[in-house]
Each structure stands twice: as C-alpha cells, then as structure tokens.
C-alpha cells in the first residue's frame, strides 16, 4: 500500500499514451473513409440528385428523419407527443455537436438556430399548433437547404 503512489505516475502516463494512440488510430481509419456516411459527403461533388442525404456537415438524414417525424405528429395535432419526440432530436443533435461543428461551423449554427424555435414552440405552456407547424416547416426547409448547398 505504501508504494502505491510510486506506481501511479508510470501507470497514468502509459494509459494516457495508450488511450490517445488507440483513439487516434481508430478515428483515423474512419476518417480515411473505408465506409460510412462521412466519406459519402467528401466523395460526392457535383451530382445534385445523389447528394440528397449529404451536406457540408455530412449525413444529416438521421436528424432530418426525427424532424420529419415530429412534423408529422404536429400535423396530426398531438403536440405533447411531438414534444416528447423532438427531445430525441435535441439529444442526438447536442451529442453530435463536437463531430459536426468542425466540418462547417456556419452551417451548424444555421441548423442549431432552426432547431431552437421548434423546441421553444413545442415546450411553451400552451403550445399552438400553427406556431409549431411553422417552426417545423422552417426546420425542414433549413435541412433541405443545407443538403442542396453541396
């Protein structure tokens, strides 16, 4: 027990180095794009019809799907359910910030600013279907405009 502290320094240094090397190795092989939507964004250039799901931020389809889902629920008039579902978008979007933002910070902010009003509209004390529909429509337009930009 006395000598535990003597081990700490080499152990922490070695684990830190191993962890960094592992992470760098794993992340680099994904970056060079053997598979995955990230490579889709970089390899697709001019063909507009094919670039439906890609944008400067990469593949946003997962987020757009949730947004479309929420819009559909809002259209049906079930605002509490829409409020629950849009939380999935918020959590997913928030957790991917560090991965997405560096790719195109301005685009990220644009989409982030479009998500906020949708969240507020659904989270007010007495949500209004017209406002929610508009917010969701604007959000989907923003998604599409980002994907069209490529």
């Amino acid at each position, binding site marked *: 027990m006395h000598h535990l502290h003597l081990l*700490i320094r080499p152990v922490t240094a070695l684990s830190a180095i191993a962890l960094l090397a592992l*992470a760098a190795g*794993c992340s*680099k092989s994904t970056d060079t794009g053997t598979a995955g939507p*990230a490579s889709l964004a970089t390899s697709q250039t001019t063909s507009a019809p094919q670039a439906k799901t890609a944008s400067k931020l*990469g593949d946003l389809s997962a987020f757009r799907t949730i947004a479309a889902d929420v819009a559909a629920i809002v259209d049906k008039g079930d605002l509490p359910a829409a409020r629950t579902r849009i939380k999935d978008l918020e959590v997913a979007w928030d957790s991917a910030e*560090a991965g997405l933002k560096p790719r195109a910070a301005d685009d990220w902010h644009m989409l982030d600013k479009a998500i906020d009003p949708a969240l507020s509209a659904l989270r007010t004390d007495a949500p209004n279907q017209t406002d929610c529909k508009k917010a969701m429509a604007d959000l989907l337009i923003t998604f599409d405009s980002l994907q069209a930009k490529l």
Partner: protein
Amino acid sequence: MNTLTTPSISNWLNKVPEVTLSFWVIKIMSTTVGETGADFLAVNAGFGQGMTRTAMGALLAVALFMQLRTRRYTPWIYWLTVVLVSVVGTQITDLLTDGLGVSLYVSTSAFAVALAGIFAVWFWVERSLSIHEIFTRRRELFYWSAILCTFALGTAAGDLATEAIGLGFTWGAVSFGSLIAITYAAWRMGGNAVLTFWIGYILTRPFGAALGDMLTQAKTYGGLGMGAMWTSALFLTVIVMLVAVAQFSVGSRRNTQAAE
C-alpha cells in the same frame, strides 16, 4: 517568517496540491466530466441551461466555501472545487457566446486580458505568484480567480479554434497536446515555472475537451463511439482512484510528520 518556507512545513500549509503527473491527469479528466455532467443536466435531464447554471453556481459557492475554510490541502474538496470551477468557467463562456452573441475572438481576447490582469494584481499585492505558497485566504482567492479565468479562456480558445479553422477533436487533441508538450519542454529547459505552469493549465482545457470528444463521439464522426455516459463513468473512476490515492498519501504523510 523564513520557517514558513521550510519544505515540510510548506507542504503542510499549502492549500493546493503539488504539480505532479497525477495532478495533470485529474485536472484534464475533471474538465471533461464536469462538462458532460452539466450537459446531462441541461439537455438529457431537461433542466435547461438557466437552471443548470444556477445550480452549478450554487454548488461552486458551497465547494469554494469548504475549500477556503480547510486549513490544509484536502484532495477531495480541492478537486470537487476544480470540477465545479471548470463547469462554471465553461458556462460563463457559453453564456457569452450562445446567450449574448459575443464573438469568440472578443471573448478569447477579453479573458486573456482579464487573466493577465489577475496575475498583475496578484503579483503587485503578494510579490509572488508561486503556487507552492498558497498559505493565506487572499492568495487562495487570487489562485481560484485565475483558475476560473483559465477555464473560461480555455473554453473560448478551444471553441474559437473549432469555428475559425474547423479544428476537429482528433487534430485538436494532437495540436493542444503538442502545445502542452512544448510548454513542458520549455519549462524543463529553464523556462519560467509560473508562466509555463499557467500556459499549460490553460491548454489542458481545450485538450481535455478534445480528448473527451474523441471518446464520446460516434464513429461516423471519427470518435470511438463510447458515448457520454461510459466516457464519464471511465473518467470518474480514474479521478476517484487518483484522488483517493492522493487523500491517502496526504493523510499518511501528515500522520508521519505529526508523529515526529
């Protein structure tokens, strides 16, 4: 007065830990854990930014109160305070950036100037910026002000690098890690200890953030895909282990000294 600087007594009286590898590891990891925790409360738990900020501010006040009141360095209180200072420092920058629309260029510069100001006043009043002699309440307040400012500055600088040059977390970890290594080398080659310590300290904020992102982010974004929960659990485990070792070794050292 000279007896205060005898090594064994200064160890006894210094309110803050010695700068060891363990110190840096805990510091880096506690940054990540603090940020993930605050994020969890604000988003996942649904408390929102405003309430989370208030809660963290209140917790910091309590922790700082406890830390200032202790007569000697008590690892678990010190590191709890560091985690909370980290969170609040980050939140201050986020409030400026997201809440008030302040440009990251402006906030980075402002915090750099503020930090320089803190050091200027600290040195003017105490004639020493040594972190090995934080014996008085006043010195400790300077210390914690500087620490808070380094977290705000580190957050702003890291965010600025992401937004201005698209620096992702992998290259961010490499860049900030390299800068830290260079700072360390500069110190070993005779560079000013105070300057290199604080520069290193600032840099560990964006480094810790990048490291955390490398572990949490999904594989499609080039991360390891561990997710926030598992990464936080891992880091928290390491922190608790290292702080426990520190607490134990501080305790046994003082018992030995007291027995002499």
